[in-house]
């Protein structure tokens, strides 16, 4: 039996700044995971990733990252995505310092 599809978001790094971005439902790139479009249908997710990957002059390395839904918004399921969402733990740098 194929594995059940778990919720995902499209994420990448911004071309110029290199920082972490997420694809929103209205095709913007957001710096905040909370604004990401949460994809629950596998076929739709693959399409969204294809569309995102074509935006070569805006982003680098789009992929689907697992999320869980907490109170209606997306939260990371893995610590790597949690670091990408916040920044390094040795300095108050990156996203945690920008919000």
């Amino acid at each position, binding site marked *: 039996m194929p594995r059940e599809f778990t919720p995902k978001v499209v994420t990448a*790094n911004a071309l*110029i700044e*290199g920082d972490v971005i997420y694809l929103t439902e209205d095709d913007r790139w957001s710096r905040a995971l909370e604004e990401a479009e949460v994809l629950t249908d596998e076929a739709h997710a693959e399409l969204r990733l294809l569309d995102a990957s074509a935006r070569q002059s805006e982003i*680098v390395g789009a992929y689907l990252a697992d999320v869980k839904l907490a109170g209606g918004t997306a939260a990371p399921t893995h610590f790597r995505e949690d670091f*990408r969402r916040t*920044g390094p733990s*040795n300095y108050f*740098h990156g996203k945690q310092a920008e919000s």
Partner: protein
Amino acid sequence: MYRYNEFDTAFLAERNRQFRAQVERRIDGSLTEDEFKPLRLMNGVYLQLHAYMLRVAIPYGTLNSAQMRQLALLAEKWDKGYGHFTTRQNIQYNWPKLNDIPDMLDALAEVNLHAIQTSGNTIRNVTADHFAGAAADEIEDPRPVAELIRQWSTDHPEFQFLPRKFKIAVTGSPNDRAVVKAHDIGLRMIERDGNPGFEVIVGGGLGRTPMIGKVVRDFLPKADLLPYLEAIVSVYNLLGRRDNKYKARIKITVHENGLEKIQELVEARFAVLRDQFGGVDQAMLADLEAQFAPPQFRDADTGAFEAAYTNDPVFRSWVDTNIATHRRADHAIVSISLKAHGATPGDASADQMRLMADLAQEFAYDELRISHEQNVVLPHVAKDALPQLFQALKAAGLGTANIGLASDIIACPGMDYCALATARSIPIAQEIATRFEELKLEHEVGDLKIKISGCINACGHHHVGHIGILGLDRAGVENYQITLGGDGTETASIGERAGPGFSADDIVPAIERLVLGYLDLRATADETFLQAYRRLGAAPFKAILYPEAREKAA
């Protein structure tokens, strides 16, 4: 030190101009990321977790004060005010923007620095003993040879697409401070019949398949070095596996083909190449040796130093820990620790870099070195200047007396920055250092090398740590494996895995238990952790790490 000639300056300007145009074409959409990636990697630009990262080579770890000031300028102007010195004598900037990087490279070129071949499947920055030119035990300064290798390997047309990256390290002393046995090629200078030459070691490396290098030639006359290196790399270029990234390093080529076959092929190729060099390399080397002539050392009266050493216990502790023996009795080699307890190993702020540059200019004949252990070295300091130097360092948070001790930890950037990492390493290093400072025990423990990597690629050299820590992802949770008994010197060995890994919460107590346990096991106060481990074997150390297993067996 080496000064760029017109050719170097023009070459670098052209490379930087090309890269600027490549960046512009990437930004305007004419290049895709797949097309751009190999170009940016050739120029040291990575994309990491939170941002781009620029890796700048510090050839054989040598800097002058103007170069160090420029590194500070880059940190301040285009980054977040700091830089990270690495185990391969590079400096990494963690937050540059892609459109700023061409300006950063131009600024580096102003002081004869670059980021060429700090990535990609090329011959990388040539590293050397960080005490080069100053160490009392040295046969010859290895840096002229390292610079010769840098010039030969930079943009070498045959070696721009090797099966995998290729790292060369050189030491001019029989005592290995450059981890030469864990490099693709390690060169250890030795003497035979009064003539300097090299023991040539091939196929060492850490990573997922750690191996100690094997001696491919027990004595190579100095004059034969470049054609011999070219022979090794060209044999590898043809024989190395390109079908599997994990089997592509020369250590696997040597392992799969056997040392004897490699030796035969290399010697055959060497016989062809040797005459082709025609002595040009030796003429260049003679010129380089003149440029690396030692500074005009002044005579120093050591009286004031002796008095301060006797009267000031804090100064004495720093001298005992951070000073190494210089070739001149009235001079000293000073290691500046970038491992203040609780700080990120290898990081220096722009202000600290500038201060170290000023101190090098005032007290150290304008010379600085970066060590593979992520510290900064002032290689030549007259002993009468040491008290004043120490006060200046201490005031800037650079006076930590812990070189070679438990808190002098190598740590890779780990999951705090690196896209390849499987776990964090910096916070573990910070916590271990902070804990040993609380215990006030590290001077009592003595020589101890703890090295931490945040993934199997082993940038943190954990395999050659007396205590190695490897961070892994176990079912979505950080987990830390301990290896014991590694050694990165001339008596090199790969550490052995102690047993099951520890959680992020349990790893620091485990290390503390291990070190306290060693104090009970050692035969005398002089027996180091590594010596005790080699005398006793792994069993008593495992028993300390895993007391539950011992109870179960009882």
